[in-house]
């Protein structure tokens, strides 16, 4: 419709639109001028746009209906964001608005033909048709194609929230979405007169109040009322009598008082979308001045967020959400030009737009009530005022041309309806309050409330809705639900088919499931259901109100997304060496370091493992080779600061550890270290690590990297209620750690410490508190990688210093840093199991060949009973076992490959690498225990073929463990 730009009606009463500076927005590419204070919808309406959308199913034309963000009719794509309610979205210069769900245009939508066949698509259409799978497979993609409303860019760029986005990271402009956490004594939701009064009263009685209102100005419905005197007595808590003022003046005066009150914090443009457990309110605030660029990020110069999600905890809640209007039922009630009173008033009063030329008003008041006066002032001719019961249908195809009444036809281009007032009870239901049907008011009203909730104003009670006959069960063009194109007939048919409970009726017909969240259709669908089933409204009941009460964007919910990256205190040292990083949980760890310069091109920067290839190469990558040689032949150093560390103290510490760990730890001598494992009650391995005894009542525990929080909680869980004196402290963040290992490890460290490192003084599996290079360290002599070595734990702040010192000291011995990949190979050669890599949520120590961790003669410990059963089962041969294996051929299966027995998968490889010391692929695998005998062969699936592997229970490297003890 290439409408000329309508001039504003003369002498319009609007206050907000009197600005000058012109704004241009683009509608489907066409420039349109708007006024400050306009919403997108009011600007478009002023320019003659009447069809704002096409309906979901039948593509029927739809115009402005509620004007207050409560229906699906004005959804458009604004600045790239789909499904934006244009009637509550303010304009800004350069804004790009596009229509949705219509091709080629809203005026002429090819798919609107589906409307003519709507009789062919009764309720439950898809369930009853295309039952043949092949037919459905053909039809389904077509249905998909035409479904949906707005469109989003297929490009995964354009992220407005992410901190790592280059646009935000460097320029200092914040992300578009913020989160903030508040608490208050009283939260008042709704800034109409009832909410304003409640806020003032609460503040007067000394409480801190947060007042939440979704409009740009306070005053609620008073703002868009006519200049006439507002009825009712209005005495403020301070005694000031405001009775007799006009609606807008009353709103202004009350708002002034609220704003002046220091104990009230006002959140304008803010929607409270949910009440969650623990009296938590979700509030979404649109921030002033926020303008989007096409990618949703704040436009240049805006460093603040556009939208802010407030997590608001409150002691008391006042619900003053008022009532909204729902669409009455009559034929063609969805035609553009059919408008609820709120929309007409807002257009006229807030935006100075003439809603039409010739109106019929549906009202129970003979003179049409205040809206008639309002329309007259806006220059609209009033054709007639009729009561609801006389209205039969709206006439017209793309826009209303007139109406049919019980007394004949009337011509008009605007039908203004006093809709059914519906108390806005979404939050009330979420609060756990009940709703009861009040026949006198013809509405569901709050019943019993939890003690912290008060409901005031129209949310608590309304002027009675008129009683109007429901349309007959065959009304095919009477829409109950404009979101989903559900008609009265659809509902009646569904009830007849047995969907006669409001919950099943909702799911079958999809009524109340659309973008309006049931605002337009809840009441009338209940009424239809009640009539068809012969039940009362009360019995029929309402559907569950689920948050959010208004649609909230994923961006706002996600907020500025901080994805923590944990870096060890030695991070800069690895960076300086040019390592390749890998993620391990939140941590960054060096996967490997570049190979020495002698072998160029092997640095493997950014190299990630070959994920989709089908087998490992049977040569070591050069970088691993070099790191491996350093450890096995000279000395290597690895950052193990990511290990979890717990400090456990107290006189009952031995008791706790004996109960929780499978080993016996109470009899450890001071200065000793033990490997220890944790199991759950079912004997499943949870974690392993080392336990060092530093004093009678003091242990130092390491856990695997990802498990620290879990182990801490596990210990705390088991001491809860025991009345023991134990303190478990997570000291992971405070400590750096390195492991220095290799034949030259002793020489390297000896130069840095006065503590003797000779085996006689400091044997394997012992620990000492020592001074290393002036840094207080806890040294554990352990041997994960199979060489003489020490794990040093020391204060994080000395991290880089000590690393550099050890590197310098080790240089004459040829020290080399090694990463996670080499460490995994080194430990695999020792056949050390990594819990969580080689075991899973069903593995127990017996089957995992770790029987030594469980001291079965110990009194009792978590998992003992189950482990005893597992032990007994070992003999029966009815389980899976974790075994070491050596490949008999050149292949090196990938981790995760299947073990095959009798042509079926019978197990899996958990770790496998090429072993330089064996010259073959070695690994760990779960296999049927029937096969788990040293020297037996089994098959592994490699690259489409079966590779032969041989079982071994010995470590592959230094089986006697001599090197560890040297």
């Amino acid at each position, binding site marked *: 419709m290439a409408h000329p730009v309508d001039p504003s009606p003369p002498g319009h009463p609007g206050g907000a639109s009197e600005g000058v500076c012109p704004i241009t927005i683009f509608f489907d590419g066409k420039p349109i001028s708007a006024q400050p204070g306009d919403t997108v919808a009011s600007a478009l309406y002023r320019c003659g746009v009447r069809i704002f959308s096409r309906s979901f199913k039948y593509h029927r034309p739809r115009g402005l209906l509620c004007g207050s963000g409560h229906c699906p009719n004005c959804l458009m794509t604004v600045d790239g964001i789909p499904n934006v309610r244009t009637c509550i979205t303010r304009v800004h210069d350069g804004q790009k608005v596009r229509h949705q769900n219509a091709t080629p245009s809203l005026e002429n939508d090819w798919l609107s033909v589906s409307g003519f066949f709507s009789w062919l698509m009764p309720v439950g259409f898809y369930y009853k048709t295309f039952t043949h799978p092949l037919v459905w497979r053909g039809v*389904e993609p077509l249905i998909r194609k035409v479904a949906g409303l707005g469109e989003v860019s297929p490009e995964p760029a354009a992220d407005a*929230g992410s901190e790592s986005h280059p646009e935000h990271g460097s320029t200092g402009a914040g992300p578009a979405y913020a989160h903030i956490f508040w608490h208050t004594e009283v939260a008042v939701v709704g800034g109409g007169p009832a909410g304003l009064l409640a806020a003032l009263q609460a503040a007067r009685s000394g409480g801190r109040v947060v007042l939440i209102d979704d409009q740009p100005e306070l005053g609620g419905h008073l703002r868009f009322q006519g200049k006439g005197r507002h009825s009712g007595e209005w005495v403020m808590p301070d005694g000031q009598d405001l009775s007799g003022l006009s609606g807008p003046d009353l709103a202004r005066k009350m708002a002034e008082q609220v704003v002046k009150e220091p104990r009230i914090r006002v959140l304008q443009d803010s929607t409270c979308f949910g009440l*969650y457990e623990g009296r938590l309110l979700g509030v979404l605030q649109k921030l002033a001045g926020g303008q989007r660029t096409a990618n949703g990020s704040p436009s240049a110069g805006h460093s603040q967020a556009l939208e802010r999600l407030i997590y608001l905890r409150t002691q008391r809640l006042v619900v003053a959400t008022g009532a909204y209007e729902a669409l009455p039922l009559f034929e063609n009630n969805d035609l553009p030009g059919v408008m609820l009173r709120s929309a007409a008033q807002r257009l006229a009063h807030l935006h100075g737009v003439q809603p039409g030329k010739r109106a019929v008003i549906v009202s129970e008041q003979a003179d049409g009530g205040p809206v008639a006066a309002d329309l007259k002032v806006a220059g609209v001719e009033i054709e007639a005022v009729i009561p609801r019961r006389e209205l039969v249908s709206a006439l017209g195809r793309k826009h209303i041309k007139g109406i049919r009444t019980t007394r004949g036809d009337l011509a008009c281009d605007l039908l203004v309806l006093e809709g059914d007032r519906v108390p806005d009870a979404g939050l009330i239901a979420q609060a756990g309050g009940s709703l009861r049907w009040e026949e006198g008011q013809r509405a569901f009203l709050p019943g019993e409330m939890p003690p912290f909730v008060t409901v005031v104003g129209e949310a608590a009670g309304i002027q009675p809705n008129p009683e109007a006959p429901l349309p007959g069960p065959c009304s095919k063009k009477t829409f109950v639900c404009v979101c989903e194109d559900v008609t009265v007939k659809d509902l009646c048919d569904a009830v007849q088919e*047995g969907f006669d409970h409001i919950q099943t009726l909702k799911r079958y017909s999809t009524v109340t499931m659309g973008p309006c969240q049931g605002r337009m259709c809840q009441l009338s669908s209940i009424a239809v259901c009640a009539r068809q089933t012969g039940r009362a409204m009360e019995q029929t009941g309402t559907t569950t109100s689920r948050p959010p009460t208004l649609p909230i964007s*994923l961006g706002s919910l996600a*907020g500025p997304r901080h994805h923590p990256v944990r870096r060890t205190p030695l991070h800069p040292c690895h960076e300086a060496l040019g390592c390749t990083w890998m993620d391990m949980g939140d941590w960054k760890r060096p996967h490997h370091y570049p190979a020495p310069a002698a072998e160029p091109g092997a640095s493997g920067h950014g190299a*990630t493992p070959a*994920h989709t290839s089908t087998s490992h190469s049977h040569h070591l990558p050069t970088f691993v080779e070099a790191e491996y040689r350093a450890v096995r032949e000279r000395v290597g150093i690895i950052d193990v600061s990511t290990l979890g560390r717990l400090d456990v103290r107290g006189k009952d510490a031995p008791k706790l550890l004996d109960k929780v760990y499978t080993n016996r730890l109470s009899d450890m001598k001071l200065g000793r270290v033990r490997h220890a494992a944790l199991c759950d009650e079912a004997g499943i391995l949870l974690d392993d690590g080392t336990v060092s005894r530093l004093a009678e009542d003091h242990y130092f525990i390491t856990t695997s990297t990802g498990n620290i929080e879990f182990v801490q909680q596990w210990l705390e869980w088991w001491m809860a209620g025991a009345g023991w004196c134990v303190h478990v402290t997570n000291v992971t963040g405070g400590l750096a750690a390195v492991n220095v290992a290799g034949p030259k490890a002793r020489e390297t460290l000896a130069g840095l410490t006065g503590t003797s490192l000779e085996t006689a003084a400091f044997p394997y599996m012992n620990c000492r508190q020592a001074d290393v290079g002036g840094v207080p360290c806890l040294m554990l002599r352990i041997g994960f990688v199979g060489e003489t070595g020490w794990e040093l734990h020391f204060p994080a702040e000395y991290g880089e210093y000590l690393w550099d010192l050890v590197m310098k000291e080790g240089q004459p011995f040829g020290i080399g840093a090694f990463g996670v990949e080499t460490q995994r190979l080194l430990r695999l050669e020792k056949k050390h199991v990594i819990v969580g890599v080689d075991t899973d949520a069903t593995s127990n120590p017996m089957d995992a060949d770790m029987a030594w961790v469980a001291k079965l003669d110990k009194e009792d410990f978590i998992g003992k009973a189950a482990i005893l059963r597992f032990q007994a089962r070992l003999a029966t041969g009815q389980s899976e076992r974790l075994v070491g294996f050596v490949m008999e051929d050149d292949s090196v299966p990938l*981790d995760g490959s299947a073990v095959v027995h009798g042509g079926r998968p019978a197990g899996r490889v958990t770790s496998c690498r090429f072993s330089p010391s064996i010259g073959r692929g070695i690994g760990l695998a779960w296999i049927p225990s029937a096969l788990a005998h040293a020297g037996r062969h089994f098959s592994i699936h490699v690259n489409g073929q079966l590779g032969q592997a041989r079982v071994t229970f010995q470590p592959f490297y230094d089986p006697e463990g001599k090197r560890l003890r040297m």
Partner: protein
Amino acid sequence: MQLFSHERMWRSHELKSRYDAVIIGAGVHGLATAYYLGKDHGLRDVALLEKSYLGAGNSGRNTAIVRANYRTAEGVAFYDASLKLYEEMSSELGWNVLLNQCGHLTLAHTDSAINGLRVRAETNRFLGVDSRIIGPDEIHKLVPTLDLSRRPRYPILAALYHPPGGIIRHDAVVWGYARACDRMGIEIHPFTEAVGIRMDGQSVSGVVTNRGEISTRVVANCTAGWASKVCQMVRVPLPIVTYPLQACVTEPLKPFLDKVIVSATLHVYVNQTDRGELVIGAEIDPYQSYSMKSTLPTLEQMATYTLELFPQLHGVKVLRQWAGICDMTPDFAPIISGVESLKGFYLDVGWGTYGFKAGPIAGRCLASLIATGETPKLIAPFSLSRFRQDRLVGEKAAAAVSH
């Protein structure tokens, strides 16, 4: 023509004083069990008791992902059999359950995740289930809207692609089964709560309901999140704890995504329905509860991780969020069996976050167990006694977030 007939889907009945079998819980599992009792075994004197409306439990709250690419041989065979039954369901019931086998991708963001997927791919292939590991290029071809760049905190490295996986309309399954049961003469009793179970020595003898008492020799517990409460009535302890699981749905969009995307690292999964809505699911809540209230932190988490995968969705709005309560077993595998100590009492529970897809086969096997007394091979690994015998099944890695 069915399209224009408005015949009732299922009729209402007075509760009789005795039935051959009583099934507690009319979710997909209870309904499937009744359906197969009638269809395969001609047992039609059966009452299905549902304390609320039909589909009020998880069967009406789930995200309806169906697939067979599990990790253990037992799991794969079982879920594959279920998927096959779903494939035939629309024509068998004469009722379209809107099965859409659009393909299912489980993303890996770390090396170790890739290894976990490889275990599944290998087992799947040996058992004839189409599933394989693919790299970023192929992922991009299948899901061009996915962010495969290095921007996310955990970039996507690979995926397990399972072409026959997809989504189904959960309510349609419930209604379709209910209608078929009704046509066979099986009685469906909504708003009928089992409040007690009568025992006669070592056997069940009846069920007490809010609408009166029933005598029967066979009672099946198909109550998912309430399973442990029903078992309390007969003092059969279950190794089950109940956790809420949440999901949300957005406003309808034009076609954006036609695969099911699952990321265990990010604890999120996303798909788009035929109506255009994006359905987003989370991992289970961190604490046990029977509450079906949804929470804001979980909604935030679902949004956050969805945007890690699809940053361009930041302006797309969430319409609704909800929760169901999930009956979790220690090994993420179900319990389908009789109970040694109580004759006539059967369990089909422990469905946790993943049981919708299993409804048809679980129901069929349980029906066969009830009718013949023989345990079908497919469910042999899932007996209650396995916990006493320490024979866990080990589906945690494949079932956790992946539903």
